[in-house]
């Protein structure tokens, strides 16, 4: 009944959503996993990445490699910004109550949001797709944007590299040690402060990169910071805070539930209507728009109840 090409388009649409979410959520998860700080300002770093990329494109012009220079520039500036913020401010939060961390990072969201408005105004901005990745290809009878396919390649590469570094290198071993017992590592002579700063810089770099890479397919508007942080938060709750693969699969689940929720809600409305008519003899108009979004929230709620540490996370001690 349902065309396979339609299912394939929805699936690919879901994967695109997932890969953007993964880029942003991976940094959030990393910071929490290692430093036990929920950084609500992570979305603000992402927004800065988008604005900085736009700014650079205005300077260098998008032709040729301009976009890639802009993306790298944006990610680097955001990484530096993250490093400075960690050194000067976050440092004081480690080990404090979660409430203080939330209040502090929320204050940072407001400050950075206003700073972006001050620097770039409130007008929606947009960046063109780099010429190399513009256009689309035909795949199984569907039209797939090349840029989306590119993102589907970037996501897993970052997940794999991240996993490799954390699990197969000396640096990764020390980072994991910092996560498990900060004081012991300190006593063994490692500079935990530097490790924290570097991890924060890496997470900020990912946020800035995500912001820059999203510009060819989304408008840059004030408020994108808050919107994305809520989504990223759902992703890490589903996947498990602190787990890189958990974040990856959390993103994929979020994306696919959202993508398939749209056609499902359309098929479900008449069915529900018939059921209510048959069982309750009531002709109730069924309006379940937004079902997709509810499905995602419901999934998060269920996971919070049955497995609060997420699908791939480990229970907190």
């Amino acid at each position, binding site marked *: 009944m349902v065309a396979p090409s339609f299912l394939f388009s929805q699936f690919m649409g879901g994967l695109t959503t997932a890969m953007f979410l993964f880029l942003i959520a991976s940094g959030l998860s990393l910071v929490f996993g290692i430093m036990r700080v929920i950084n609500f300002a992570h979305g603000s770093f992402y927004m800065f990445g988008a604005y900085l990329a736009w700014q650079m494109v205005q300077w260098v012009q998008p032709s040729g490699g301009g976009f890639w220079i802009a993306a790298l520039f944006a990610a680097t500036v955001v990484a530096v910004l993250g490093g400075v913020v960690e050194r000067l401010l976050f440092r004081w939060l480690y080990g404090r109550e979660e409430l203080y961390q939330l209040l502090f990072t929320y204050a940072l969201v407001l400050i950075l949001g206003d700073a972006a408005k001050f620097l770039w105004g409130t007008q929606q901005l947009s960046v063109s797709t780099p010429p190399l990745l513009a256009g689309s290809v035909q795949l199984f009878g569907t039209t797939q944007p090349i840029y989306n396919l590119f993102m589907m390649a970037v996501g897993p590469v970052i997940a794999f590299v991240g996993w490799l570094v954390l699990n197969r290198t000396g640096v990764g071993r020390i980072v994991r040690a910092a996560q498990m017992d900060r004081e012991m590592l300190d006593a063994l002579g490692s500079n935990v402060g530097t490790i924290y700063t570097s991890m924060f810089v890496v997470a900020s770099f990912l946020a800035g990169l995500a912001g820059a890479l999203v510009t060819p397919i989304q408008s840059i508007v004030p408020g994108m910071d808050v919107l994305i942080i809520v989504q990223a938060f759902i992703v890490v709750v589903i996947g498990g805070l602190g787990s890189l693969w958990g974040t990856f699969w959390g993103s994929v689940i979020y994306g696919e539930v*959202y993508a398939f929720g749209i056609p499902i809600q359309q098929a479900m409305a008449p069915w529900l209507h018939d059921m209510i008519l048959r069982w309750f003899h009531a002709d109730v108009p069924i309006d379940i728009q937004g079902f997709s979004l509810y499905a995602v929230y419901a999934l998060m709620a269920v996971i919070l109840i049955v497995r609060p540490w997420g699908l791939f996370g480990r229970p907190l001690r």
Partner: protein
Amino acid sequence: MRLRHCLGLALAAAASLPFAAFAADTIKIGVPIPLSGPTAVYGKPILAGAQMAVEEINAKGGVLGRKLELLSRDSKANADEAVRLSRELIIKDNVDFLAGTLTSAEAPAVSTVAKENKIVFLAPSSKSTILTDPQHIHPYIFRVASNTDVEGLAGAGEMAQFKDVKTVVTIAPDYAYGRDSIAAFTAALKKLRPDIQIVDSQWPKLGEPDFTAFITAMMGKKPDAVYCSLFAGDFVTFSKQATPLGLFKAINNRLVDGGEIGTPDEAQALGNDYPYGIIGNAYDPVIWGGGNEPPEHKKFVDALKAFTKDQYASGWSIMGYEMIEALAAGIQKAGNTKSDDVSKALAGLTFDTPVGKRTFSVQSHETFSPEFWGVMVKDANYPFAIIKDPTPLPANFPTN
């Protein structure tokens, strides 16, 4: 130390005296409008239009020999905040009138404050029919903008022109404005072209960052055309994602949008990524493609560009400008600033705007203002899309 303190106070008091005397003579207009947050994109240009109108009127000696004074406050597009600010403007600042708000969330809320306090309130841009429908109308509320019924009728008229279109899909933000505008479009299209079927309706949330799955679901229904009420950043995101997915190609660019995407505000953001060939609208096209620009409009846009120091100016400033022009005309006709008299003067009043005359309906206190519609085209003189031959639509709206 104490002496210096006293001196300072005395100086401050002396300095404020002449201003206090001046302020008592002005006609004060309280303007709650979003000046921060995502909707400030429209709040700011509307305020700029209002400020320009005030400056022009004051340069000619004001109204009834008194100057106009705007007291603008940031409503953050939040209904509660707009209500709080409106009360404060009335009680603390003693404003004579309220004129402002942006969204259909704020305007109906402020309207209740106007009703309680018996003070005239002009809403420049809220489109939801709820603002002035028979349950909510009261003597003090006036709407300068179009409403969603007018928009839907005009949009359906544009869609009906596509003779070979048999199936249409709609997509609109899932809140009052989107729902109302699609309902109006559907009702109007049914009368104009009963042969067209609406095969699918998509309702992404306002501010949706990812339309991909909505677009592929729409395309799955293989429509001949799309009717869309997405606006601002949402439209920018939507079209950036729809273009590579092949939506515009699949429907042969037969997309009609009623969300004011024909203004330079939207077009500039998309630049050459704009899906040329679609049909858009605007309160003020600002740039008049294809010649035939009315001279009053050209004069207005030139003055606006000089006033805001913008290269291209915004398509929303005209709403703030018209709001002040209408209020000034009402005060002039009433002969005083008592809200009861101004309200009577405004009902049925015809006032001039840079794009023609507008009249407040006696029953529903709105102008049923047409908007300018047309095909979005590339123009060698501009690095973005403009409306070709902007046409005020609907040509006739059954007013009450």
